[in-house]
């Protein structure tokens, strides 16, 4: 009962946020100067021609009417057609979303299997050379903007003597796992760069805090071996804050995806957004922004649920 109540509450809040963001997206995209009509007409545009095409596209209707249409469309998953190519928006956005998600998930898995164990290592070997080295590296990672790390990776591993990876592009998973991964790995590493350091530092500091807590002393004084202290007693408690950080970072990664995709010419959602902005292709743009937003909100909701599963002290529904 309490569980479902809590869930219902969270879902209501999440839905409300989506609604607010959808409205913001609508407001901002319609406020973009210029219109698709001008782009289509290119150099041949005359005010009359622009007006005529805008009329065909329905861009001359009152804002409120377009807003209602847009909202209804979003909810019913009828996202309209691209103003430029005329294809249904879903057909443009969904495959792109899928590719971006592939990239983000690979990057996330990479973070989980590298940053968390290394964070635990740095915590348990606190103040040794390995701790200093890893925290040092992560400091560099935090300070480097993603376009720098992505460009560096691209220069280093797609040209010259270390020409190990294709310099961009994408092949679908159906063409073979390794080929797929080969294209994906480098942009994923670039994305991973941004969140790796945060996750490592978060894991390290919360593990250190946990290892200094009284119940760890109790465990050691029970004669529990250092290994079990770390993995049985400390890990579950120490990784709780990391779960939240992972979820937040997943959203953040969806934001950085635009830059990384652009650099690696990866045909994902990010590139689509950039393209849609250039072309003032509002329906595509709106959907392409809204979809990752919903993903972000959903991943936060999921993190909260995982958190409560890990920590029995959080009683769902009560503060």
């Amino acid at each position, binding site marked *: *009962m*309490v569980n479902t*109540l809590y869930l219902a*509450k969270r879902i209501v809040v999440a839905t409300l946020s989506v609604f607010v963001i959808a409205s913001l997206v609508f407001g901002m995209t319609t406020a973009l100067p210029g219109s698709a009509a001008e782009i289509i007409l290119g150099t041949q545009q005359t005010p009359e021609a622009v007006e005529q095409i805008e009329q065909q596209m329905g861009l001359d209707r009152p804002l409120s009417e377009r807003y209602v249409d847009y909202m209804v469309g979003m909810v019913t998953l009828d996202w309209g057609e691209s103003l430029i190519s005329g294809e249904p928006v879903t057909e443009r956005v969904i495959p792109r979303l899928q590719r971006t998600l592939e990239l983000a998930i690979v990057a996330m898995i990479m973070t989980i299997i590298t940053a968390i164990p290394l964070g635990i290592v740095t915590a348990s070997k606190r103040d040794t050379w390995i701790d200093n080295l890893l925290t040092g590296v992560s400091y560099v990672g935090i300070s480097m903007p993603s376009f720098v790390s992505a460009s560096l990776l691209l220069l280093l591993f797609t040209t010259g003597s270390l020409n190990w990876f294709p310099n961009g592009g994408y092949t679908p998973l159906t063409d073979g796992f390794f080929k797929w991964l080969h294209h994906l790995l480098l942009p994923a590493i670039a994305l991973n760069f941004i969140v790796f350091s945060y996750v490592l530092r978060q894991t390290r500091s919360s593990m250190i805090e946990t290892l200094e*807590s*009284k*119940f760890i*002393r*109790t*465990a*050691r*004084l*029970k*004669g*529990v*071996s250092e290994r079990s202290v770390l993995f*049985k*007693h400390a890990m*579950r*408690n120490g990784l709780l804050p990391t779960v939240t950080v992972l979820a937040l970072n997943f959203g953040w990664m969806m934001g950085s995806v635009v830059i990384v995709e652009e650099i690696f010419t990866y045909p994902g959602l990010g590139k689509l957004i950039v393209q849609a902005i250039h072309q003032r292709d509002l329906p595509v743009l709106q959907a392409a922004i809204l979809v990752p937003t919903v993903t972000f909100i959903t991943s936060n909701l999921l993190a909260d649920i995982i958190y409560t599963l*890990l*920590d*029995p*002290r959080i009683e769902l*529904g009560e*503060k």
Partner: protein
Amino acid sequence: MSQQTVRQASNQSDHLLSVDSLDVEFQVPDGSIQALRDVSLVLDQGETLGIAGESGSGKSTLALAIARYLDNNARVPNGTIEFKGRNMLEFTPRELAEVRGNQIAHVAQNASKALNPSMRVGAQIRESIELHQDVSDDEVRERVFDALDQVNIPDPEETVTRFPHELSGGQQQRVLIAMGLACNPELLILDEPTTGLDVTTQAKLLDLIKELKTGAEVGILLITHNLGVIAQIADRVNILYAGEMMEKGPVDDVFTSPSNPYTQALLATTPELNRTKELRPIPGGIPALGEIPNGCIFADRCDFATDECQTGDIDVEAVSDDHETRCVNWQTAVDNPIEAGDATERKSRPGDVILEGKGVVKHYDEGTFVENLLSDHKPVRAVQGVDLTVREGETVGLVGESGCGKSTLGRTMLSLHELTDGVIEYRGDDLASLSKAKRKEFHAECQIIFQDPDASLNPRKSVRECIERPLKLFTEQDEDERIARVDELLEQVNLSLDLKNKFPHELSGGQQQRVAIARAFAANPSLVVLDEPVSSLDVSVQASILKLLGELRDEYNTSYLLISHDMGVIQAICDRLAVMYLGKIIEYGTMSDVFAPPFHPYTRSLLSSIPTLDPHEEGNRIRLQGDVPSARNPPPGCSFQTRCPQKIGDVCETDEPELVETNQETDHCVACHLDESGTTKPLETPVEEL
């Protein structure tokens, strides 16, 4: 010489535990801290040894040193720790892991933090057994239940599936002890096992430890700052001060004829029930242990100190066969002991009513509209209809176990919490409709001091700024006047003027509380609410703060509303007292009324739960069954009926008793269905005859 060594060696191996001239030091950036110096003790099977002393005396360090669990920066330059004849200092990590939890069990203080929050308690006890005993799964299960049985956990099957936060404080402590007992250890180290628990819970835990003593052949090392606990439980006691053993001997001898000035001072500073003693604070404070001065470590605070005490080594001297003291003047001390005199009874002349609560109700967590719609959400009924008045020049106490709503009531009276129902009047005017000017006057006149000064003083404000703040807010004084007033206040609370520009974290707990008191008194308040003002402080600091509060009260004719769970503290300072249980006042009257029959059964059990300093006092203690019911779901009828040892029947379950006056002259009221013969029995009455 060699013969002597041999004799000693064979002697030591007879003991379960023997610590000999142990030194422990901690390396810190600017030198080292000599935490323990020349500490020796022996403990035999089946014996309970109490280690007592103020905080900072090294008690917990000693306990952890014995379990060989010291921080990385600790060193043991000298001494031996022998457990069953084996020098533990030479144990390999493997040997240590075998002994820990198996033969030596360390039960840490503060059980809520010492249990793993994300493991079920059953699994935590189980782990100990699986680590050390080679037994089948079924047997492990059985032994988990046995251990829980041994600590009187009512429903072991249910409890093993719980997480620590789902248990009450007393039960958490029991689980922790059960974990210690799971492998039938030979040495049980109990570090402050009852600190932070309510007296009624403490009384039951002490019973449990007594039971363990008689049942098993276990040696118990009981570490506590509470001398009453030692007096009730231990066979022998060692008094520790600033890392040195000051006195050791059988509890009877040490408590009846303390032979060290420190022990005497400690006893004289401890509040005792049924004896209105004038608590004697110990002057000064525990020294920093960076550099150890020559001579006696206590000399600076000692009434008997002579020149001899300032120089040379102070050795341990024998008072009798098994009673030793580290003092050169112990004979003088025994002849003229430091004792607390009897307090002179205060004549309070209550004046006009300052603050009056009428039918005060405070609910927490009332739930949102949706919650109430979808579930039968119940609010926390922290205060349920309380009448309370505080007059000019009187000190009213508010006592009760944790969770009874006393702090909430105190804060609601100052309108720090919003009122759910009822009226609070400040000098006859409803607080809710005060004019702005009058409200400012109310805030200036009614101040509050909290339990934890560390948390209630702004860490970024200097002492001077902290004290000056109310002067700026509530008075028209210019800067010179304010600075003069700050100096005056610092003097009144016995703080050196040098501290003026220090920040709260640079002060000790006692000093911080003095600053908080100076701040509260700055604008000449007529009423100060004291919310557990001394409960986080050491007993000697506690006595000096209580003394200070008494002096300030006399000087400013201030009224206090003192909130405390500690009857000793209440007794030391209050004129009238209200006893609270589950959000209601169940007894009210002058101090002598409440501490003497007729008793409310709850007051009776509270009073009888408090351990006294007299080791011979057996008393017929009342043990309350179960825990305080949830304030979300208080029982019908009398709120105390679920635990009352004197429950008479259905009437208790259906009718809520009213506060009835038993003494018209002093306005003593008791809310109970019992007739006179039930409430007037003396405190010593055995439980069966109630």
